[in-house]
């Protein structure tokens, strides 16, 4: 690690957090999916959440993007409390996400999916859409250029006009990342970006994630089971189990934390 990079990392700690997640509780009937989790994500941070299946990682994402409304707690994103705000409003504030099981618009082409990511950036109404004159047409052209830049960034050129339902799984994952990026997010949530991918696809995705952090400067929260990827990429990691945060810190700290080892490997018989 160069001195410059260490300085950068230190600087990241000081800046105001883009997201503060404070003591959030969410339960489904008797099941406490999120039981008092708190964390902060810095302006230039890649924050990872790990934990066994059913630990509540995706529930945290669903609280963040407004799909679930928590029973208690506070979530402040970019200075605004977003509890109870509808998902499309939260999206407009600059939070975008990908899904664990791909949630693309299967009948639409790659380009249309990316253009849907631009939805909030296309500032025209239904009346201009009917006429397709000046306003709507110019907005479509300008945003098409942005979508094409994302096509270049994620190397999707050859798939542009294919309906996404026909594409290989790894490419679909990339298109979904592209759709989230097209929103020009202030915070990007990645739900298992490399789940089910082979080594080559995983490495491609890792490269894209690093590019997003270093070139586009977008803070990210990543949920992932691939420990190699998480330990290599993340600035800080939070481990959760049964809806509770059991450890938060740098990759090395979390890796060696007794509770994390316990959650993953179980108790040693004595």
């Amino acid at each position, binding site marked *: 690690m160069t001195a410059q990079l260490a300085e950068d990392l230190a600087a990241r700690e000081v800046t105001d957090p883009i997201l503060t997640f404070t003591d959030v509780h969410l339960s489904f009937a008797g099941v406490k999916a999120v039981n008092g989790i708190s964390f902060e994500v810095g302006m230039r941070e890649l924050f990872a959440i790990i934990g066994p299946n059913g630990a509540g990682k995706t529930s945290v994402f669903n609280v963040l993007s407004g799909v679930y409304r928590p029973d208690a707690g506070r979530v402040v994103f970019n200075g605004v409390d977003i509890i109870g705000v509808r998902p*499309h409003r939260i999206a407009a504030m600059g939070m975008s996400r990908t899904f664990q099981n791909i949630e693309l618009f299967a009948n639409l082409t790659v380009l249309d999916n990316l253009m849907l990511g631009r939805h909030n950036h296309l500032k025209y109404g239904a009346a201009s859409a009917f006429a397709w004159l000046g306003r709507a*047409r110019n907005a479509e052209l300008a945003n098409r250029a942005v979508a094409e830049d994302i096509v270049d960034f994620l190397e999707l050129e050859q798939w542009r006009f294919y309906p996404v339902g026909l594409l290989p799984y790894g490419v679909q994952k990339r298109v979904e990342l592209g759709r989230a990026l097209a929103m020009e997010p202030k915070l990007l949530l990645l739900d298992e970006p490399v789940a089910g991918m082979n080594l080559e696809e995983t490495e491609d995705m890792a490269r894209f994630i690093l590019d997003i952090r270093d070139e586009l400067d977008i803070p990210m929260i990543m949920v992932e089971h691939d420990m190699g990827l998480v330990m290599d990429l993340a600035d800080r990691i939070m481990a959760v189990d049964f809806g509770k945060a059991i450890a938060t810190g740098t990759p090395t700290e979390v890796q060696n934390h007794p509770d994390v080892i316990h959650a993953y490997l179980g108790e040693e018989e004595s």
Partner: protein
Amino acid sequence: MTETSTRFKSRTKRPSGRPELYTSYSQHLRMLNTRPKFVSVTAIVAVAALLPWVFDDQTLSLLGLGLAASIGAIGLNLVTGYAGQVSLGHAFFLAIGAYTAAALSGDPEDNELIGFGVTNVVVWLLAAGLVAAFFGVIVAPLATRLRGLYLAIVTLGLVFIGEHIFKEWPELTGGPGVGRPGPVPELFGVGLNTPGDFLTAEQKLYLLMLVTLIIFALLARNLVRSKVGRAFAAIRDRDIAAEVIGVNLTRYKVLAFAVSSFFAGVAGALLYTITGFIEPSSFNLLLSVQYIAMVLIGGVATISGSILGAMFITLIPALTRQLPNVAPFISGDATKAFNVFQLETVLYGLLIIGFLIFEPRGLFGIWIRIRNYWKAWPFTY
């Protein structure tokens, strides 16, 4: 983005012999973005515009009905094909349009029927669309709470409520078995449903339908290639993902119903200028099913498919009514055991099932197959 300037240029020359090579986004985003598309669409419109001088009046009436029904089918395709909100209530919105237009253009001297004497076709056509759209907006909130089969059942309820009201409101509808005259079309003092010096009533009405259809087809095509159309498709394919990327579900569902009902209202108003008579019991479930059939047979989520489907369904009766001459066991008499009217009803069902199983993309899909075959000819792929 150094090459931004050329990426946007619209007047750059297209290289010849490479129909799918685009050198700017505006070339690609054009509605008819290849020469064959441009030539064929121009040719179809030109032929359609010349038909009044080719066919006899009876055929023109039938084709006019098909053109008017096309507008309604496009409307249903917007809400069901594009936005994925299954609506069986289309007959209700057609009725709202038909009665709004008939009442506005009706004879104010008539003591038994509501009439305001506004015969300007543009005025009552817009009014028919707007009133229908208003009812669409009222119904739309149901779609924000229900989806799939449940929404279909609730919209089905609309048809029955509508049928009941139309039967029990003789001042507006004339009552069952009596009915009322259809809307009176007039433009700049020229009656469009009366024979003139140069054109017969059927020729004028046909041209009215053609012009209106072209306008509405263009509007619909613009809508579906815009952010609104994409938002509709997003709601159809994955509604939760659509919301998470910033699509306001409530707003776009309401918009889908409003636009769809507007188209249905306009179609309803036009249809009954041709028949010249509105019978309140004709706005039943079968009418809704016919429109579903148009969409499914023509091609879900395509504008040109909607027109194909509407023409197809409208022209079926003309063909089946010829059947008794060929196949004597089918009766042309509605009181006999197996008649052409029963056959038609069965045929709608069979066609829907057949298309769903063998060609889910409808007539439009068949066209795509033919096109792809000839694109690659003489190779197989």
